[in-house]
């Protein structure tokens, strides 16, 4: 960027107006939400070992020394990169394929797939991972047992404790998130670009390779970065699968060293890891910003003939259905297993004989637990407010980043991406330290704040790309008609980006329902939510109870997602 001074330009200032007030409030809110934790992260990384962040004024490089001097750190970084890259690449590829099938072709069952994708996001990765363990663990994984019985062999169908199992299970887990982001991208592509390639001799495959994919690249790239950071952060699957497979990654190491079974967690070390991630993320951010700037250039003349058209699959229809629904089936397997577990009071292997023993006893027991009722109410408050706060903030930030083009807009955009790079545990600790002496502390609202911070990055991505597509004249028309800026946002901009808003809202809703870190760290006696209740059962260990609660969580989410999805699907299909 070269800065050209505005020649002789005086930007008339007329005191406070709605935009400036909103922008100031936004800056303040995002600053507190994001900058606070970032500063505490950096401070904590320089704290001496054995202290809590902000406990002392001393500075020390101990944690950095520990991180970088250990001969294995670089190997772990390597492992992490390989793991994150492969998981992300596989996940994003699958998601792209599925999004293409559901958004650009006439494949039947599109709405069903959309609904399934959303409902999967609600299940904690921990629980899905456990479902997988029940299915394919080398001891008595259900699929392995079946395989041995059917083919009368020894050995395993698929080695659970291996790099590839870890990578593939992670990849499958990131698909729903990536899918939601990519389908928005595909929806907005001018089909004439593909048709032109068809007419000029390109075969179907050539068109996909040389036209569709390259056009998606800038968008995919940014989604890829997002997913990459998300995978680098996860420790659930690397811990339960990767560690046994002797494939340690950075997050497992940090988790083992910083969140021990006893004593004091080593937050300083976790924070150092966070700073490392922040640096990586900044690099990726820079790449991302560049790629979106290229994306701006990609906007070409678009005719009024723009009419998104679905590709008739013809003979490929079975292939597409096969592809999409095999994924859905594979994703459904661990959940089926959980369902099975929840219908038995103690664990038994699935079999026809055991069918007679099924009952809803566990559900009855879980519902009778007084904590569950409170958790249910808290959860509703939590997910609804977090989703709403995130999406409203994101819409406003998105507006400033896409419309004003000013430096402040870009700063907001960058700022909102930062939470992606902070390990959730550190982020939440920072929130503890920031809100400690305020009345929100210990209430459900402090979890709302945590989730609003964590999911802001996603919300802003979603809304920026939606707002970029929106013709400026639509809002200008409202302004000229005499509506104030906020009124124009409320009456024109918001209704027009409503489908994306709802999509994003559901996404945050689901992720907020499933997140464990913040509810656990901020747990007080009054703010228990479904996820923390789930964790307590899991730890106890009450396996059937955990399964039953997961299933109920999913069903509750479906009850919300399905109507919303049917509604948005209507809107999309009827265009």
């Amino acid at each position, binding site marked *: 960027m070269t800065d050209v001074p505005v020649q002789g330009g005086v930007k008339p200032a007329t005191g406070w107006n709605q935009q400036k007030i909103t922008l100031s409030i936004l800056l303040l809110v995002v600053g507190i939400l994001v900058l606070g934790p970032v500063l505490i992260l950096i401070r904590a990384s320089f704290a001496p070992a054995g202290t809590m962040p902000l406990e002392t004024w001393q500075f020390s490089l101990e944690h950095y020394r520990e991180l970088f001097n250990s001969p294995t750190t670089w190997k772990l970084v390597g492992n992490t990169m390989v793991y994150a890259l492969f998981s992300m690449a596989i996940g994003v590829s699958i998601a792209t394929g599925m999004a293409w099938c559901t958004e650009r072709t006439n494949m039947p069952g599109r709405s069903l797939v959309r609904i399934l994708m959303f409902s999967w996001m609600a299940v904690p990765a921990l629980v899905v991972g456990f479902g997988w363990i029940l299915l394919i663990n080398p001891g008595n994984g259900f699929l392995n047992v079946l395989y041995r019985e059917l083919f009368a062999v020894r050995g395993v169908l698929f080695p659970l404790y291996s790099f590839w199992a870890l990578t593939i299970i992670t990849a499958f887990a990131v698909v729903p998130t990536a899918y939601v982001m990519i389908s928005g991208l595909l929806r907005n592509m001018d089909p004439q670009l593909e048709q032109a*390639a068809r007419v*000029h001799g390109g075969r179907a495959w050539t068109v996909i390779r040389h036209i569709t994919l*390259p056009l998606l690249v800038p968008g995919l790239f940014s989604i890829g970065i997002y997913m990459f950071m998300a995978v680098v952060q996860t420790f659930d699957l690397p811990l339960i699968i990767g560690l046994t497979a002797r494939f340690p990654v950075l997050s497992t190491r940090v988790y083992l060293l910083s969140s021990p079974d006893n004593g004091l967690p080593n937050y300083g070390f976790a924070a150092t890891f966070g700073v490392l991630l922040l640096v990586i993320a900044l690099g990726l951010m820079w790449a991302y910003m560049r790629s979106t700037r290229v994306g701006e*250039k990609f906007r070409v*003349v678009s*005719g009024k003939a723009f009419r998104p058209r679905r590709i008739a699959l013809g003979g490929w229809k079975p292939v597409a259905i096969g592809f999409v629904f095999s994924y859905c089936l594979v994703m459904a397997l661990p959940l089926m297993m959980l369902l099975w577990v929840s219908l038995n009071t103690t664990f038994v292997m699935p079999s026809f004989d055991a069918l007679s023993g099924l009952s809803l006893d566990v559900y009855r027991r879980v519902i009778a637990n007084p904590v569950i009722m409170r958790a249910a109410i808290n959860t509703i408050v939590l997910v609804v407010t977090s989703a709403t706060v995130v999406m409203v903030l994101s819409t406003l930030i998105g507006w400033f980043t896409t419309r004003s083009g000013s430096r402040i807009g870009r700063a907001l955009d960058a700022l909102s991406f930062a939470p992606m790079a902070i390990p959730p545990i550190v982020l939440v600790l920072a929130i503890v330290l920031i809100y400690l002496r305020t009345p929100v502390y210990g209430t459900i609202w402090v979890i709302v704040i945590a989730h609003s911070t964590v999911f802001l990055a996603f919300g802003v991505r979603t809304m920026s790309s939606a707002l970029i597509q929106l013709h400026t004249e639509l809002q200008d028309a409202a302004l000229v008609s005499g509506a104030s800026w906020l009124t124009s946002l409320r009456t024109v901009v918001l209704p027009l980006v409503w489908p994306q808003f709802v999509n994003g809202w559901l996404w945050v809703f689901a992720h907020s329902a499933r997140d464990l870190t913040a509810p656990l760290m901020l747990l007080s006696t009054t703010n228990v939510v479904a996820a923390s209740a789930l964790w307590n059962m899991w730890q106890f260990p009450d396996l059937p109870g955990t399964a039953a609660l997961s299933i109920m969580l999913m069903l509750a989410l479906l009850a919300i997602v399905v109507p919303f999805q049917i509604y948005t699907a209507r809107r999309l299909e*009827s265009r």
Partner: protein
Amino acid sequence: MLKIDSLRKVFPGSEGRAPTKALDGVSFTVEEGAFFTLLGPSGCGKTTTLQCIAGLEAPDSGTIRMGDTVVFSGSERILIPSNKRRLGMVFQSYAIWPHMSVFDNVAFPLVHGSRRPPMAEVRREVAKALEMVELGHLSDRPAPMLSGGQQQRVALARALVHQPRLLLLDEPLSNLDAKLRDTMRTEIRNLVKSVGITTLFVTHDQVEAVGMSDQIVLMRGGSIVQQGTPREIYLHPNSVFTADFMGRSNLVPGRVMAGGSTGRIEVPFGELAGTVASGLQAGDRAVAVIRPQAVELLSEADSTSRENCFSARITSLSFLGDVVETEIDAGGQKLVLMLNPYAGYEPGQEIFLHVPADRCAIVPADTTEQSQ
């Protein structure tokens, strides 16, 4: 070269809306090397026809033949895919691929098409095509960094580089501004004619159609209304719709007095001799089509009670630059004339007119309601 036979296409209506009959038995033949235009108002099925020919849309029934090959036949269940039809096409939005350079855009049909010549030849052919549209110097420029007119030309070069059998153009000029549109109009026609390629052009602008085409097919609501050379369609409309669509016309309702090519019609301001459309008989309700340009102004001295001569009074003048649109009143009937901007007529002035009989077409009154 291209033979379309009774093409039909219905789009199923979604969510309770009625299905759309986009094409309702369209047949026409395009001669080798012709510049053939599909003209019609918005929604009449032009794009659908073009897309059926391109293979981007499958008709419900009918036949499409290109040269000797049947590329689509509803009854024989033949459907040759788009990329096997050897076509060139320019889209309304140009559809220039923004992630490629100008060179890569133009080279695509060669590199990925069916022929796939060696790279050296590709380079030669692309250079030739770019020279043809005078963009040789921009070969390495990323495609999005071109102006509208340049993108247009790249699209044209891309559509022609692989020597297709047929060039399809879907409203290629509608995204350009008026000035550029004028320039590109002649440019495209000259280019296409110099290459000698058969061209099918889609537009809703009768000026473009008339100025560029060898043959015009005028469509309305999925069917063909009239086919002919621009002169035929413009000067001898067979219906009120054609007359009205092809440019400003005075449509004077009346009753046929005598049929045939030297027929007569009774109109509010008297009797008119003109060419009566076949099928109209004495006594039928009909419309006399008098184009503003068809009217000759007579000096007062000339004015006799000759056939098709009238006096009228100017009611208003509006200056439009190249012409002055003049409303006159002839015996209670309002007519519009286009007068020379340099001639000094005044409102209220009386003028004397002559409508030569061969410039007056008498066509059936339109019974179907006209779309807005």
